[in-house]
């Protein structure tokens, strides 16, 4: 086969030689290490556990925590980005509930921001690069409002359309003709 492609043999030799040469390169030792400063204090902290004496954490300040307009924008975006499909209106569905007091990945604004942008391994998609930063912060404000972490005058109102009529147990008597209810035979 190689005789039919004489150039291939030379190419193979060249590639092998290149591999051999590059394989001989030794790892260079670093004589000047990186400065041994502490890791950034501002990193988003996901765990309350920290070894050794407590380290001060620099808090993010979300611009929207006390802004009713931004929070209601967050509510609108929560539906438009299909968050509502997984978390319902806070009660959860395919995703966990957001209106309760259990936070798998932290309840601070920076935690929720990171969760939205980075995604989480058990099914939360990574929305980084898909939603503008200010809109993520608006979503963060709305998510926190659902579990009462924002002031009441900031949190948007609940949609009452579906909840309005107390008809849960009421049953209409009218029933389409030709579609009679199956005879409810007596319990045996």
């Amino acid at each position: 086969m190689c005789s039919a492609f004489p150039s291939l043999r030379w190419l193979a030799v060249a590639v092998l030689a290149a591999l051999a040469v590059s394989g001989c390169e030794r790892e260079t030792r670093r004589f000047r290490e990186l400065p041994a400063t502490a890791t950034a204090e501002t990193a988003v902290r996901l765990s309350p556990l920290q070894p050794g004496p407590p380290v001060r954490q620099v808090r993010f300040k979300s611009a929207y925590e006390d802004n009713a307009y931004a929070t209601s924008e967050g509510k609108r975006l929560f539906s438009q980005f299909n968050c509502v499909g997984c978390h319902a209106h806070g009660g959860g569905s395919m995703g966990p509930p957001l209106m309760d007091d259990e936070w798998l990945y932290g309840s601070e604004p920076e935690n929720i921001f990171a969760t939205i942008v980075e995604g989480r391994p058990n099914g939360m998609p990574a929305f980084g690069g898909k939603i503008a930063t200010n809109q993520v912060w608006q979503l963060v404000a709305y998510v926190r409002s659902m579990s009462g972490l924002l002031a009441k005058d900031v949190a948007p109102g609940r949609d009452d359309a579906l909840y309005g009529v107390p008809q849960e147990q009421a049953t209409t008597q009218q029933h389409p003709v030709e579609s009679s209810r199956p005879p409810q035979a007596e319990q045996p």
Partner: protein
Amino acid sequence: MARVPLAVAAILAVLACSEPRRDTRSPQAAATASPSFGAAPARKDTLPSPEVGARDGEWPMASGDYANTRYSGLNEITAENVGKLKVSWTFSTGVLRGQEAAPIVAGRTMYVVTPFPNILHALDLANPGSTRWSYEPKPVSAAQGVACCDVVNRGAAYADGRVFFNTLDNHTVAVDVQTGKELWRARLGDINRGETMTMAPLVVKGKVLVGNSGGELGVRGWLTALDAATGNVAWRAYSTGPDSQVLLGERFKPFYAADREADLGVKSWPGDAWRIGGGTAWGFVSYDPDLDLVYYGTSNPGPWNPDVRPGDNKWTSSIFARDPDDGQGVWAYQWNPHDLYDHDGINENVLLDLDWQGAPRKVLAHADRNGYVYVVDRTSGEVLSARPFHFITAYRGVDLRTGRVQPVPEKAPKTGTVVRMICPSAPGAKDWQPMAWSPRTRLLYIPHQNLCMDFESTDVNYIAGTPYVGANVKYYPGPGGHRGELSAWDPVAGKEVWTLKESFPVWSGTLATAGDVVFYGTMDGWFKAIHARTGAELWRFKTGSGIIGQPVTYRGPDGKQYVAVLAGVGGWSGAIVAAGLDPHDSTAGGGFVNAMKDLPRHTTKGGMLYVFGLP
């Protein structure tokens, strides 16, 4: 220059293509093989015929037999002695999500697939409770984020020394029963398009039939046939799109004239909406060896909000009859044209040979989400009858002339408004939970709901890999206040013979036996045996968690009859417990939480197999 990489790639490709080792079938496996893919003509007469029921004390596929009867000829456990039934042994699956699977029994081994992470346990029936091996497919964790209704799996399928099952992240896997080693694995879908796989495969003539899930995520539905020996795709039939992709060709002869136009899978949609239009095939598949046709249903169209998809939305919420060899459609029928309420058409089709108005007729029985029990001629696709088995406000019946269900206009959802008291609700009169048929009583045993709903359609955006629904909904009990029933149904007369009311939806499968006992489970954890003729309760046992699994029966290595069921609440109806949803939001869990607020007081999470036998 590009030749070397090409050559390397070619070598890799050849290596990768080397055929998986064909297992040498052990005498035991040969003796117990039920659905065969040996393609030997002599095998044909050994296939279960539609009404025979599970063969010889085994349970090789989720439905028990090709006809989906869930009937077993075993009769050691009878209506007279079932009261003495005791727990023989138990096994913890190790996973605490909804256990919808049917345990599969072949030879001296039982195969149980857990919910995500879809571990396949092979349990030694001669040494109850111990595993021969466990196989872990390790599906990606992120798949849980696109599973609409808990991370369930509905069971495996056994054929010729292999067990086949699906993983939540869209792999079909074949495992050697002797070694527990993977023989092949085929990746069939993409979670980034919202796809998952939850259904139990069916093995027919050397092909493994599998379908996808994701009707709530704008997934385009399909049924795929894989070569059981290699895992190579033999054919794939989409539910929407051009006839060339739906595999509708010369042989396609739907019964109703309106269905005979070409490319309805495109023309009955606005623009390209069929590409994200649902029609997933996540239910059970049945097979008639005499007609050589497979039958299966397709899911709701996406999104739920019907305003954005004018047209019939073919072939969602439909049934296909296909040739298992090449997938070509022979007939199709749409249960719910332009579905308004998430009324999937995936419910199982039970193949029966009935005396119909004085003449024997090959039919299939199907209890649809829309509240009607259909009897359909399975050779032609003609609807012979459609009778209500649930309180219905949303439809006026089925026009047998055109085959079309008649929606009630006042109950049609409109974007931006709330429509109340729609019955049946979105999970329908009956969801996936399969019914059973007893040839002795000639009755169907239908596990179902009694729920109505309020439905608010909203604007909706398609973002691949996220829900594509466009509706806020909440469910509540229908007339009577109970949420579930088990009904005995006479398909010939088209009427209910008796019904048992249950507080919660009956989300478990059913099992009928030659001992005239019917088994089912409740979401508050009662496993019940009732008299197949009268419905009288004969026995009950409280399991550790709610039951949404499929009861099965088999003959153990000791020759005795056993009944097995998985307990472990979850699924769509039980997500309030399995996923810890918050009942303060009525729309949680796709609206189901509103109807299940009290479930957490009656059961907790579980994942336990219970096997019962006579002392």
